[in-house]
C-alpha cells in the first residue's frame, strides 16, 4: 500500500484497503473557519445532539475576513466565538493565529499519519507532514462534529518523483505550477498526489506545504509527502502528543500508482499561471509585456517566513515602481513576528509595500485589496479564476514570491533572475 492507503486503512480499522473502496474513517481533527464555520454550526444545531463528539479535535480559526470588514462579518465572528465558548472548542481569534492552514501545523494540530478534515479546500496542505488531509463542506463538517466519522473513497494515486537542484530564484511554487500545467486542472480529480524523490527530501517544510497546498488545483483529494527528520524538527515543541513512529508511514516498494511522473527541476525556470485557469502556465520570461497594477505576497500558498525572506532579498535597497501597489501579508502572527525580528517588515515598508495583519485578504476577494475592472494583479496565491480577487474583469497571474517581488519593482511580470546584479 502507499502512505495514503495505509493511513486510511488504520483510520477505518482495516489491515488493507484498495482504491475505489469506500471506508468509514475515524477523524483525528476537523477545522472550520469564519466563512464555513457559521453554516457548519447552523447545520450542527439541526442534527439535534447537544455536544460535539470531541472538543479536543475541533478547531475554529478566524482568518478570511479579519479583522471584521463589515457588520455582517462581525456577527458571524460573534456567533463562532459563542459556539466555541459553549462547546469549549479551541478558537484562534483575531491577532492570535492567522491563516488556517498555517496555524494548524504551527500550533501543533497536525500529526503525521492522522486523518484531518477542514471546511476549506486547501486543507490538503497538511499532507506536507504526512497526514491524510482533505477539504469538506460545512454540512459535512457538522456531521463530523456530531459523529467523528466520515465516509471516504480510497483514492487512486499519482506519484511525482522529483530530482535535481533548483536554480537560484526558482522555487517549489514554480515546480507545482509546472506540474499543474502538465497534468491540467482536472488531471488528479479524486486522486491522491504523492511527492517523492531527493528534491522533496531536501525541501523545507515551507516548500512542501506549497506543493501540497496546490494539489487541489488539479482536483486532487489529497497531496502527501512521507514524514522525515525535517518534519520532526518542525513539529517537535509544537505538538503536545508524542510523534508517532514514521516507519509505518512510508509507501511500500510495491505500492501501486495509477501514474508515475518524473520531473528534474535542474532546468526549471520561474513559471506564471495566466488567467483564468491555474493550468495556463507559461515561463515568466515570456510574460514580460504584462503590466501589473497590484502585487500580492501572502496566502496559505506562499505567506511563510521563507517566502518573505526571498521577497525581501529582492526588494532590499530597491523601490517598488510608481503605480504598483504591493501588499505583503504574513501567513500568521508567528510569521509576522519572525519577519519583524529579521527586519523584513522594514525592508518591505521602505520599498513602498503595505504590510497587513495576517489574513487571507485579497486571495479570495472578500476583504482587503480587491481589484477594479481592467486591473491586473501578480500574486503568490493559488487561484486565478474569473472574479477571484474582485472584479470579474480583473486579471490574476500566479507566481512565486521572487517573481512577484521582481514584478513589483519593474511594474510588469518579471523573471527574478533578470534583476540579478543590477541593484538600483
Amino acid at each position, binding site marked *: 500500500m502507499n502512505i495514503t492507503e495505509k493511513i486510511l486503512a488504520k483510520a477505518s480499522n482495516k489491515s488493507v484497503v484498495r482504491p475505489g473502496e469506500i471506508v468509514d474513517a475515524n477523524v483525528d481533527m476537523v477545522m472550520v473557519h469564519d*466563512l464555513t464555520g457559521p453554516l457548519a454550526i447552523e447545520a450542527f444545531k439541526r442534527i439535534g445532539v447537544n455536544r460535539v463528539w470531541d472538543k479536543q479535535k475541533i478547531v475554529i480559526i478566524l482568518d478570511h475576513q479579519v479583522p471584521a470588514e463589515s457588520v455582517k462579518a462581525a456577527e458571524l465572528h460573534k456567533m463562532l466565538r459563542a459556539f466555541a465558548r459553549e462547546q469549549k472548542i479551541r478558537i484562534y481569534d483575531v491577532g492570535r493565529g492567522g491563516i488556517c492552514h498555517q496555524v494548524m501545523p504551527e500550533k501543533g494540530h497536525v500529526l503525521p499519519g492522522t486523518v484531518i478534515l477542514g471546511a*476549506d479546500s486547501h486543507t490538503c496542505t497538511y499532507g506536507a507532514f504526512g497526514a491524510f488531509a482533505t477539504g469538506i463542506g460545512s454540512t459535512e463538517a457538522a456531521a463530523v462534529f456530531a459523529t467523528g466519522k466520515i465516509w471516504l473513497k480510497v483514492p487512486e494515486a499519482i506519484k511525482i518523483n522529483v530530482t535535481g537542484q533548483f536554480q537560484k530564484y526558482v522555487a517549489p511554487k514554480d515546480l507545482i505550477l509546472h506540474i499543474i500545467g502538465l497534468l491540467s486542472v482536472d488531471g488528479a*480529480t479524486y486522486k491522491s498526489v504523492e511527492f517523492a524523490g531527493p528534491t522533496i527530501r531536501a525541501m523545507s517544510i515551507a516548500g512542501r506545504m506549497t506543493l501540497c497546498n496546490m494539489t487541489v488545483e488539479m482536483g486532487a483529494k489529497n497531496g502527501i509527502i512521507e514524514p522525515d527528520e525535517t518534519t520532526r524538527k518542525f513539529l517537535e515543541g509544537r505538538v503536545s502528543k508524542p510523534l508517532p513512529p514514521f516507519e509505518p508511514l512510508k509507501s511500500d516498494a510495491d505500492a501501486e500508482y495509477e501514474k508515475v511522473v518524473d520531473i528534474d527541476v535542474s532546468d526549471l525556470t520561474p513559471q506564471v499561471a495566466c488567467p483564468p*485557469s491555474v493550468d495556463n502556465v507559461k515561463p515568466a520570461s515570456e510574460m514580460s509585456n504584462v503590466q501589473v497594477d497590484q502585487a500580492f505576497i501572502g496566502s496559505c500558498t506562499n505567506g511563510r517566513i521563507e517566502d518573505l525572506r526571498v521577497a525581501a532579498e529582492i526588494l532590499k535597497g530597491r523601490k517598488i515602481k510608481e503605480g504598483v501597489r504591493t501588499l505583503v501579508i504574513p501567513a500568521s502572527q508567528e510569521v509576522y513576528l519572525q519577519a519583524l525580528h529579521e527586519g523584513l517588515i522594514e525592508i518591505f515598508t521602505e520599498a513602498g509595500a503595505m504590510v497587513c495583519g495576517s489574513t487571507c485578504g485579497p486571495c479570495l476577494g472578500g476583504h482587503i485589496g480587491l481589484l477594479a475592472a481592467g486591473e491586473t494583479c501578480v500574486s503568490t496565491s493559488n487561484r486565478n479564476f474569473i472574479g477571484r480577487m474582485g472584479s470579474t474583469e480583473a486579471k490574476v497571474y500566479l507566481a512565486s514570491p521572487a517573481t512577484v517581488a521582481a514584478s513589483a519593482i519593474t511594474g510588469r511580470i518579471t523573471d527574478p533572475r533578470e534583476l540579478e546584479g543590477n541593484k538600483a
Partner: protein
Amino acid sequence: MKVTGKAVKFENNIDTDVILPGKYLVLTDPRELAKHAMEGLDPAFPEKAKTGVIVIGGRNFGCGSSREQAPLALKYAGVRCVLAESFARIFFRNAINIGLPISECKGIASNVEDGDELVVDLEAGIVENLTKKRSLQVTKLPPFILEILADGGLIENLRRRLKTK
C-alpha cells in the same frame, strides 16, 4: 427519484468562484445566495432557473473552493439536478450533503443542448432527453448516497439515523 426540467448548459471547469463569488459568502440566507447563483458567468441565471432546471456541465464542474454556498445557491435558485461529465470532489459531496441530486454522466455535454427537456432517474441511472428522443446512462450512486438524497440531505439523514438507533 425522478427529476424533470429544462437543461441549462455550461462548459468545462466551471469553478465555485463563478457559481458563487467570494464576496457573497457572508450571506447566510440561501434565498439571498440564490440571487447571485452563476453571477460570474451569467447574471440572468437566477431568472432562468426559477421554473426548475437541470444544470448540465462538462468536465470538472464545481472546481475550486469548498464553499457549500455554491451548490446551495444553485438549489435555491431552482436547480433540481446537476449532471456533468465529471465533478470536482468537494462540490460533488457538498451537493449530496445539502440534498441536491447530482451524478456523473459520460457523453452528456455532447448529447444535450440548452433548453432540452430532460427526465433524470437517479435510481435507475438513466437520463432521457425528451427533445432529442435519446437516453444516456448516468453513473449509479451507492444506496447510502441515494438515501441521503431521498432524506433531503446529510443532516436530515443523520437526524433520522440517530433517532432510529
